[in-house]
Structures are given as C-alpha cells and as structure tokens.
C-alpha cells in the first residue's frame, strides 16, 4: 500500500498540473507538438535519471553526470571533426557518436572501480570526477565548443506521422500572424502545385527520435530493474550492503555494473544533447546532476537506498519538465521556476516521509 501511495502522489500532482495548464492555455499547451516538445526536452534528463535511479537504489549517488555529459559530447564532436573535417558528415557522425557513448561507459566504469576497489564513498568519488571531467572538457578546445552543424538526426529527427500544409495569414488590423492548416497529408502524401506559393509551407509532425530512444531505454531499464538478478541485487545492496554480501552477492562487481550502465546512458544522452544544439559545449550540463537527483527523489526513491522505481523517476522527470514548460507558456520567468521546483522537491520528500511514518505507526 505504501508503495502505491508513494507513486500516486507525484503522479496525481503531474495530472493536476497538466489539467491546470490545459485549462489555462488550451491552444498552446494542449497540442501534440507541445507535448512532443516536452517529451523531447525530457529525454536527455530522463535517460540520465534512469541510470541515477539504479545508483540511488543501490544507496549511492553520482554527482559527475553533468560533467560526464559535457565530456562525452566534446570527445564525440572532436572525433567527428577530426575524421570528417570542419563540416563532418555521414560516417564520421556514426564513429563520433559511438566514441562519445563509449567515453561515458569508461567514465562510469572508472567511478565504479574507484568506489568499490578503494572503498571510497560515492559522494566523494563522483565529486572528484565531476571536477575532473569538467576540467578535461574545458582543456580539450580551450573552453571553446566544437561545432558540428550537420549533426541533427538525434536531436531533431522524427519518425514521421503526418504532414500538414500550412499558410501564414497576416491579420492586417493588428499585424499578427496566424497559421491556417490547409490540408493534412499522410507521411507518404505527395506534394502538388496547389501546395506551393507565397506563405505556404509543409510542416512535418511525428515522434522525435530522441523520445523513441528514451522510451526504449525506459523499457529495457524497467525490465532489468524489476526482473533481472542484477536489478534485484541493486535493491539488496541498497537496502543492506552487508546482508547482501553475506548472502553471496558480489557487491563490488554489481556496483561497477550499475555505475558503468549509468555512464552508458549519460553517453547516449550526451550525443542527443550535442545533436540538439549541433555543437558540443564544455559548459553543458552544469548543475544537471541536481535536476536529475531531484527527479529521482520526487519519484519516490530514497537516498538511503533500497527504494525507487523507474516509473517513479519518469513521473518525477515529467513533473519537472511540464512545470518548466507550463511556466514558460504562462510567461513566468525562469528565476521563479527555480523557486517553484525547489519547493516541490522539499514538499515531495516531506509528504513521502509523512506517509512512511504513518504506515510504520500502523504496523507497530
């Protein structure tokens, strides 16, 4: 019952926020495009949050994900330019992407090995690697970004669902423009002459590639955490590391897997982020780890370990994204957004704590 309540609360808040925003801004918020936009923005954070969830369940923490994101992007973009020249194309993108993701794997593996073999606290190790990864990202190009103008597929690519032919109409009275949909076409719909001309354009609609990647990762990670032995051991280690060890769990090896897995996800997220801005920024992902941890905690995971779910984390991630999106649509400044999100984090944990005390009292 407790588990149900823990997920119900953030989920309820998410629905509440969506309903409120739909009522306030039906024409801009409640559109398929805006919905996809929110998902697209959530995908980078969401993918990393999946990894962070497994780490937090194991009673660990990874503060280095933001810097790792920058480093992966920088190495990936550097490889693209080194292979394909200043405006790389095709094959160099593939190699760069794979390499960027691989850097994430190495970084995560490194964190895991340091934590287990040197028996250091995850907080300390990843605090250190956070600084080191960021430093390397700056050093690589003297603090300058690497631009890869053609690298658009992961960030902007969509799986086409339908096309619309739209005409821009200028209202002569107040000089505003509105778009009028002339025709809706299936993806294979051919464009004919009636669809060209002054102010007429063809707009493509569909599911962003990054969202599809996100969904696939959610499905895989959700399955692993719930049904694999590794996932089970993750909970056991987080709940009681000593007990897990005494029950024959190879704690060190499993922790290294968990941190490496997170590194892999950060690598994937980094290449999506790079593609979205068509450049790798050494400043990418500063303070990102805090957003990620917030999403995981809002989703009901416990920093003490042993508790947390992928579903909860997705809800937490979406809650933050929808809130940001809604605030933007309502014209609330990003500064205020920070305050609101801060309060929600504290509120979520406080309510969770309260629910736990109540269930414990009932059990006593």
């Amino acid at each position, binding site marked *: 019952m407790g588990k149900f309540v823990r997920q119900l609360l953030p989920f309820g808040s998410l629905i509440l926020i969506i309903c409120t925003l739909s009522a306030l801004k039906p024409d801009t918020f409640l559109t398929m495009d805006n919905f996809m936009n929110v998902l697209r923005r959530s995908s980078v954070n969401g993918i990393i949050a999946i990894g962070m969830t497994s780490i937090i369940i194991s009673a660990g923490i990874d503060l280095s994900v933001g810097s790792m994101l920058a480093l992966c992007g920088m190495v990936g973009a550097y490889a693209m330019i080194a292979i394909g020249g200043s405006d790389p194309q095709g094959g160099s993108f593939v190699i760069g992407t794979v390499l960027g993701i691989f850097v994430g794997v190495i970084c995560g593996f490194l964190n895991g090995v340091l934590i287990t073999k040197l028996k250091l606290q995850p907080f300390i190790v990843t605090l250190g690697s956070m600084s080191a990864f960021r430093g390397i990202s700056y050093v690589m190009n003297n603090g300058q970004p690497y631009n890869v103008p053609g690298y658009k597929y992961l960030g902007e690519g969509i799986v086409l669902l339908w096309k619309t032919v739209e005409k821009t109409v200028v209202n002569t009275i107040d000089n505003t423009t509105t778009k009028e949909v002339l025709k809706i076409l299936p993806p294979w719909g051919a464009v004919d002459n009636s669809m060209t001309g002054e102010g007429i354009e063809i707009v493509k609609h569909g599911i962003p590639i990054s969202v599809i990647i996100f969904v696939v990762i959610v499905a895989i990670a959700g399955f692993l955490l719930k049904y694999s032995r590794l996932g089970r051991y993750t909970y056991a280690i987080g709940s009681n590391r000593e007990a897990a060890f005494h029950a*024959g769990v190879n704690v060190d090896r499993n922790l290294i897997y968990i941190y490496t897995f997170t590194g892999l996800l950060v690598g994937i997220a980094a290449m999506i982020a790079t593609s979205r801005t068509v450049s790798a920024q050494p400043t990418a992902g500063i303070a990102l780890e805090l957003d990620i941890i917030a999403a995981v905690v809002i989703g009901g995971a416990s920093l003490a370990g042993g508790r947390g779910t992928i579903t909860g984390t997705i809800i937490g991630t979406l809650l933050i994204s929808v809130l940001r999106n809604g605030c933007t649509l309502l014209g609330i400044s990003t500064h205020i957004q920070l305050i609101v999100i801060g309060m929600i984090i504290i509120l979520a944990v406080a309510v969770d704590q309260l629910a736990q005390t109540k269930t414990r009292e009932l059990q006593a």
Partner: protein
Amino acid sequence: MTSTVESNRSDTGVSLRMTGISKSFGPVQALSDVSFNVRAGTVHALVGENGAGKSTLMKILAGVYRPDEGSIEIHDKPYTFDKPEQALAVGVSMIYQDLDLAEHLTVAENVFLGNEPVGVLPFTVDYHAMVNRTAELAGSFNFDIDPTAVVSDLSTGDCQVAAIIKALARKASIIVMDEPTSSLSETEVERLFEVVRRLRQSGISVVYISHRLEEIIGLADDVTVLRDGKVVHSESVTKLDIPQIVRYMVGRELTEFFPARDVKPGDIRVKIDNLSSDSRIEDVSFDIRSGEIVGMAGLVGAGRTEVARVIFGIDRKTSGSIVLDNEELSINSPADAISRGIAFLTEDRKRTGLCLGLACSWNVTIASLGLLGMKRIINPARENEIAADVGAQLSIKWLSPQAPVDSLSGGNQQKLLIARWLLAKSKFMIFDEPTRGIDVGAKKEVYSLLNRLAEEGKAILFISSELPELFGITDRIFVMRRGRLVGNLRTGETTQEEVMHLAAVEAN
C-alpha cells in the same frame, strides 16, 4: 489468576504502579487492562513471548506512547507522560538493547550528555567535573569503569555499566533493562548481575526484560508474565520454577523443549585442518559428520564467529584447508562458499542477515537465485511460489511472501533466514547464535528445524553462548578459547562445568 504482589508483602513500598493500561494500534489491541506494580528496591522480571506487549508497556512507561486508558503512579504520585523527557525527569530510565550511547564520546561525556556541567565561561563544559562526578557515581556503586575511556573501545558489558551510570546521573529510581544479557559473555553476565544487585540494595527498582528464564530465577524478586497483551500471572519468583513460567508464557506445556535426537551420524562431511587467520584464529582443526550437530562454546571474543567467517570466505585464511565431501575447497568470498554448499546464519539478523524494507520472498531467494533457475531473469510468480512453499514448510507466519520482511516478528525473521539456506541446498550449515532475542516458542521451532536438517544429512555447526541449548541439541561440543580449539567433547559425556572451565580458564 492475577495475584498482586504487594498485598502479600507490605514491608516495602510500591515505586511504580501502572493500573488498567490499554493501548491499541489501529485494529491491533497491543495491551488490554494491564496492571503492573513494582516494589521499591526490587528486581521485577517482565517476561512474555515476542509480541506479548512487553515493549509497548515499557514504552508507555517511558513516555514514548500514550496509553488509551489507564494510569501511572510513581512513588504514589499520578503522572501522564507526553514525551520521554518527562518520564526521565521523574526518575524513569530505559536501557535499551542497543544502549543509546554516543560511540565516539567518553564514558563521562555520555553520562552527562545533554546535561553537562557548565564551565567557568558560559557555553563551555567543565570536563573535569564531569569525569570526577562520573567516577564518584561509579565508586559509590562499586562499578569498575574508566570515565575517560571512549565508548567504542569498551566491551559490551562495560557499555552497559556506562548506560547504567548515565541513568543514575539522572537520578533514576526506576531502571528498565531490555534484554541486557543478549550480547554478553557468561562472565560479563555475572558482573551485570552484581551491578543489578547493587542497584537493588540502594533502593532502586529494576524492571528486567529477558528471554533467559534461568537468569530471572537467579536474579529477580518478582515476575510478571504477559501474554497477548494481558497479564497472565504476577508473583514472587520464589514460588515459581522455569517450566511454570514457560507454561504461563506460551499458555501450554512445552513438555519436550528440545527435540528427541535419534540421528546416527554418518560419514565425515566437513574436515577443517590447521585453519589460521589474521583475525586471531590459530590452528583450528575439526571434523563434522553428516547428520551431526556440533556445538561451539566459548566466551565472547574467543574466536567462534571468526572461525565461521574464515570458512565462509569473509576473512582470509593464512593457512589450513577446508574439505567438504572429500573435496578441498578454495573459498575467497561468501559467493564461493555458498556455491560450494556452505551456509552461514550470522548472529546479527538486522545487520548482516536481512535486507529490511524488501519483500520476504526477495530475502528468502537472494542466496539461491542461480540455483532456482533464475540466474539472469527472475520469474516473480515462480519465486513467490517457491517462497510460499518453503514458508509453509517452516511455518513462517507472514501475511504474504510479498510483505516487507520488517513486518515479521524476530522468530519468524530467523526462520526466514534458515529458509534462505534451505533453498541454497547447503550441505554444511553454520548457525551463529540462532536463538538470540527470539521467544521461547520460536526457539523450540528453531531447535526442531536444526534437528530436521541433521536428519537430512547436513553437517551442522551450532555456535551458542547458552550452554543449556548446546547440551539440549548437540552431539558434540567444541570449546574455543583465544582463537584456539581447546575442547572437543561428546555432549553425553561432559558437563556444563567442564565446558565453562575449558572456555574460561587458561591452561598452563
């Protein structure tokens, strides 16, 4: 049925009178109409199986819970406590099992924690006065303890003395001790009894909660037995014996406390040769036959748990060999040990046994997922079935296998851990204090479980600090002293005195 104690003996006053106490948690009636009176300057034992309501009653006394009904009088004055500080202020002190001491502070600092004498300057602490007053207090009760010693360096027995001095510094007139001997060695137990007797002499009332009934017979003046939240008996201890108390506790006669053993030990299954380690194990050799239960006695710190830890691959062995079923094993981790058929039920259920917060079924299957055909992917339905099945075999009382393991009583948690090793198909099972802190009924079940495992041909090493249970269930008894195996005795041909002598007395 209830005969009140103080009516028969009006020579001493009553320091604590709890009358008509009732308390429920949701639908569960934890206590109903409980009356509990403690005479001044006596030791009053409070006994009952786990879940009988002892802790709830004491938490009401300490101001942790508020009773639904009933009254509390201390030295004939009525009180209602809303929080623990109020109970402390009128002289009620609790000494819990885990002692509540700050490990990194000294004895004196602990004694005056939250109550420090102020130094010359404001906001400073007068350490000198603290140490002196602690020494004074210890001296006036003849306790032998160094006030400047850091708590983490002390033995459990010394920690207990420190906790008692802390209570005395707060002018306690009623001290509640919850299972104080559960982690003490025999000599430390004797010392604690001395301490308790001195408290009694100086007019302090001690409420003594223990599962060890022999202790109660030897120490207490009065006994109150709780069962299912009700007082079933309250009387002077001289009029009772252990079987009677047990009968009141369980509501039935435990005729055969230890199961009848008719297992004929078979071939040698386990052969340990010249085992040594850095953790003070020296040259330990023994063998155990299939179907044999061998006890291991010794004082706390004699190296009994360490032997188990080396065999189980937690501590590294520096020399020696471990042979199971004629095969020499190389073991570097618990995972290795488990895969070769060795089980180790650790002494600290909460710290090294259970993954609290997780489901019962998860806790049961964790050591044997690979063996159960779930090496990579877990089939929850099947896992549930397996857990329910083994749970029924061991009659574990749980709401369902998915219930969190925290919701089980201590005895059921212990049975769950035994179930874990049953599923792991262990051939050599080491049990370290498996009956610690569980109630009489559950103890009996654990004994018959051990017996059943032996009947199945497993080799069992049973580490225990309670000699009666060693004598009740084992075929042989090993005695450890200072990391060495100093005795290998046939249970039928030895006595508790001989075992204690070997364990405690240095041979020349």
